[in-house]
């Protein structure tokens, strides 16, 4: 048994470093940017023509929260090549598997995380905005210096949830031909007829990564909560 594990482990770890982790990290960064923009648009008090933009962002959140991630991956990778539209894409939208994966994971994470960020910003007392505005700060400064640093503390645990979820969800990329960790474990299992061992091993690797992330979350929570009065 050990010889099988020792043989499989380097291949799995290599796939993890080459695909699983980069996909998760890049998609999370894009997802966060998208989430922040979405949250700010949806919280904006502006009306009029701006309402159209709000509706678009609401539709985006609805779409990605209401459909399965696996189906989204299939649509982006297998489906979009058939979206033929003469002015822009006469031959359909053909994306590489990794690009399709990262785009889909980013959009999906962005939709969920936008709700987290929106709630975190909305949870801050109105007085924080008012005190900052009263000093004469522009809205941009108020957000940058006063609101977002405080919202980050509130949003950190659910955002960490999203990231941990994303790391595990990248295993779905196996189904769009990306040879990430889970795909590699399937290939090895097909060779050595040890599915229980191989899938348990890959499960363990996911668990190790996610445990590290949980630890990191705890550490970040301590840093961002420095200013909160400790309750005995």
């Amino acid at each position, binding site marked *: 048994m050990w010889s099988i594990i020792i043989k499989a482990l380097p291949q799995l770890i290599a796939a993890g470093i080459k695909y699983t982790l980069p996909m998760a990290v890049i998609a999370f960064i894009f997802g966060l940017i998208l989430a922040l923009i979405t949250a700010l648009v949806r919280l904006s008090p502006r009306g009029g023509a701006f309402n159209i933009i709000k509706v678009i962002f609401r539709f985006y959140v609805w779409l990605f929260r209401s459909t399965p991630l696996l189906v989204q991956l299939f649509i982006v990778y297998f489906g979009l090549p058939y979206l033929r539209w003469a002015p822009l894409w006469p031959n359909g939208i053909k994306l590489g598997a990794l690009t399709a994966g990262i785009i889909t994971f980013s959009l999906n994470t962005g939709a969920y995380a936008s709700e987290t960020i929106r709630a975190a910003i909305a949870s801050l007392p109105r*007085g924080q905005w008012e*005190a900052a505005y009263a*000093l004469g*700060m522009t809205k941009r400064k108020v957000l940058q*210096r006063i609101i977002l640093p405080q919202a980050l503390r509130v949003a950190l645990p659910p955002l960490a949830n999203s990231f941990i979820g994303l790391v595990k969800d990248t295993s779905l990329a196996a189904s769009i031909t990306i040879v990430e960790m889970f795909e590699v474990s399937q290939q090895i299992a097909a060779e050595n007829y040890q599915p229980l061992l191989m899938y348990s091993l890959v499960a363990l690797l996911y668990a190790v990564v996610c445990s590290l992330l949980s630890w990191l979350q705890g550490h970040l929570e301590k840093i961002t909560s420095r200013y909160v*009065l400790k309750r005995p």
Partner: protein
Amino acid sequence: MLKVQQLTKSFGKNEVLHQISVDFPEHETTVVLGPSGSGKSTLLRSLNLLEHPESGQYAFDNRHFDFAKGITAKDTLMIRRQTEMVFQDYNLFPHLTVLKNVMEGQIQVLGLPKKEAEAKSWELLKKVGVASRAQAYPSQLSGGQAQRVAIARSLAMQPKYILLDEPTSALDPEAELEVLKVLKQLHEENRSLVIVTHNLAFAQQVADKIVFLEDGQILFNGTQEAFFSPKQTSRIKTFIQAMTFAQI
């Protein structure tokens, strides 16, 4: 000189301020009195443009604005820089230390270099008597300390006016005294203050001018002596009696 004319503000169907005209002289302390819900806070917040009245004129020095036409973002920033606000519940920035709370506006709004802002902040914290807590976070302060830091934060912006919205209403009597001492000092320095308060004893000591509001209208606008004179209207006499617990 800060001045509003014909100021009207509603929240939905509820008219909170009705055709208010009043001026707040420079280098004087104006105390705004009145029962809860009379529109005092809304008036004060309108001066800092945290509220946007539907109609009325607003004059700041020689600049005139019309609320009905709206005030541009640029003018709003200019007015806010000149009229600093102190809130009942302090609204210090909890994620910044006391020192950084006082530095923040100087750096971000006035564009001062960090060193200069820091020196100025120390000086102001000493003035209000909380320099020993400079490195603490707001959550570690008592209410009286927090409010004095908020006053230091507003002074740091070197505003023409300081607007105080019930600055001591959330404090116990001893903490209130600490804050009132600071305010009295500001009054003696001839700063331009507008104070909304329920503390009549304090009003009597510092007010150069008293404005009494009820139901969104001004019932009195004049000197402190006239306000407390025995010839006062019965409504205001009743108010004074209630606030000083003269008849229980």
